[in-house]
């Protein structure tokens, strides 16, 4: 069970960060979906609702997504749906149901770096960056390698890449957590990016496999690189060996869909 002693809705990011750092059990509220599942005593729960972080906007060369944006907004927003084949919308549309996605937030989903995330593989292949209040701007793949450090994720930034991307996953039933998931990007300039998630660890880029595709290697040979390049493990949803095999099928499927 989760208990909260005090609810605060600060008027600035600076204030939110100060409150976050002022007590060990203070935390930032996202949509409350994952926090609710846990068991802890929270002193101050910090709501970012007054900070105008619920937005999806674009500039000439970037798309900016505020931390308070809901997963449902990512699913139905026209900018996101029309960006690189709508890969981000495809991924998040698998998460629980519409009611849940109306509540769950982008900032929480990215900052938490869950291994099973259906958002991270798409963001990785699109070369997303994250802006943290204290940590500043950094590439998502660097952020995913880091240990947890208290901070506030302010926005996700997508470079406007030209190309097509596809998300896919294997799950026991719709709405369940994925057994394995991933995304592939194929650029107009022939560049490939491949990310595999739910290994069950955090999503990771498969750099060697992508290079092999760029070199024109056959997909049947390239899929064999994935279990060599990325580490897989066992959890309640699938064994290491199953995931290794399925990673090949997943890549082959995504490659077929992204346009050969």
């Amino acid at each position, binding site marked *: 069970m*989760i*208990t*909260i*002693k*005090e*609810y605060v809705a600060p008027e600035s990011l600076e204030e939110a960060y100060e409150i976050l750092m002022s007590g060990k059990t203070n935390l930032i*509220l996202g*949509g*409350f*979906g994952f926090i*609710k*599942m846990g068991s802890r005593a*929270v002193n101050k*729960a910090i*709501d970012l*609702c007054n900070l105008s972080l619920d937005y999806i906007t674009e500039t000439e060369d970037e798309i900016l997504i505020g931390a308070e944006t809901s997963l449902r907004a990512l699913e139905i927003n026209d900018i996101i749906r029309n960006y690189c084949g709508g890969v981000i919308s495809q991924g998040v*549309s698998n998460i*629980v*149901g*519409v*009611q*849940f996605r*109306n*509540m769950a937030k982008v900032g929480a989903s990215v900052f938490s770096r869950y291994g099973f995330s259906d958002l991270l593989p798409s963001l990785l292949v699109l070369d997303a960056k994250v802006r943290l209040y204290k940590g500043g701007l950094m590439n998502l793949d660097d952020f995913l390698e880091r240990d947890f450090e208290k901070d506030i994720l302010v926005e996700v930034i997508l470079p406007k890449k030209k190309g097509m991307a596809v998300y896919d996953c294997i799950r026991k039933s*719709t*709405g369940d957590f994925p057994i394995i998931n991933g995304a592939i990007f194929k650029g107009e300039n022939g560049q490939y990016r491949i990310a595999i998630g739910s290994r069950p660890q955090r999503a990771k880029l498969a750099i060697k496999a992508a290079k092999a595709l760029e070199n024109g290697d056959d997909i049947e040979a390239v899929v064999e690189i994935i279990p060599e390049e990325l580490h897989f493990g066992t959890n309640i949803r699938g064994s290491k060996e199953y995931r290794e095999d399925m990673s090949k099928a997943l890549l082959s499927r995504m490659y077929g869909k992204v346009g050969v």
Partner: protein
Amino acid sequence: MNMTLTINNKKVTLDIKPDEVLLDTLRANGYLSVQRGCDTSSCGLCAIWVNDEVVLSCTYLTVRAANKNVTTLEGVQKEAKEFADFLADEGADQCGYCAPGFIMTVLAMAKELNNPSEEEIYHYLNGNLCRCTGYKGQIRAIKKYLEFKNN
């Protein structure tokens, strides 16, 4: 702590705890259509609307609904009955425990999606579990209801 919100078009001031969720607040104040199922965002039984958006009341902190409009099944009785008649005609309601959350989600879908395909209907209702019916009757009822609404 005191907060003011609107429930089914009625402005109310309530004394709540910071970790209270809307499911508990609403039931404690007599809105008994709101059901508890999984209590962990997985079944859709507790679905209500906040500012016309369908959400899960088991996971929505009450304090966050301050100055917002909360709608439960009691607040949309006319539309709910209209759709529930289609459910009954299709034999798509058995124990009925899932019905309030299901109906609130269907009514939200009817407002949000224009002429949805069967696939879109299934997708929208992914978050609503029903242990009794097997869903087929519910899909028939939704299609007939939407057809009726469009004519």
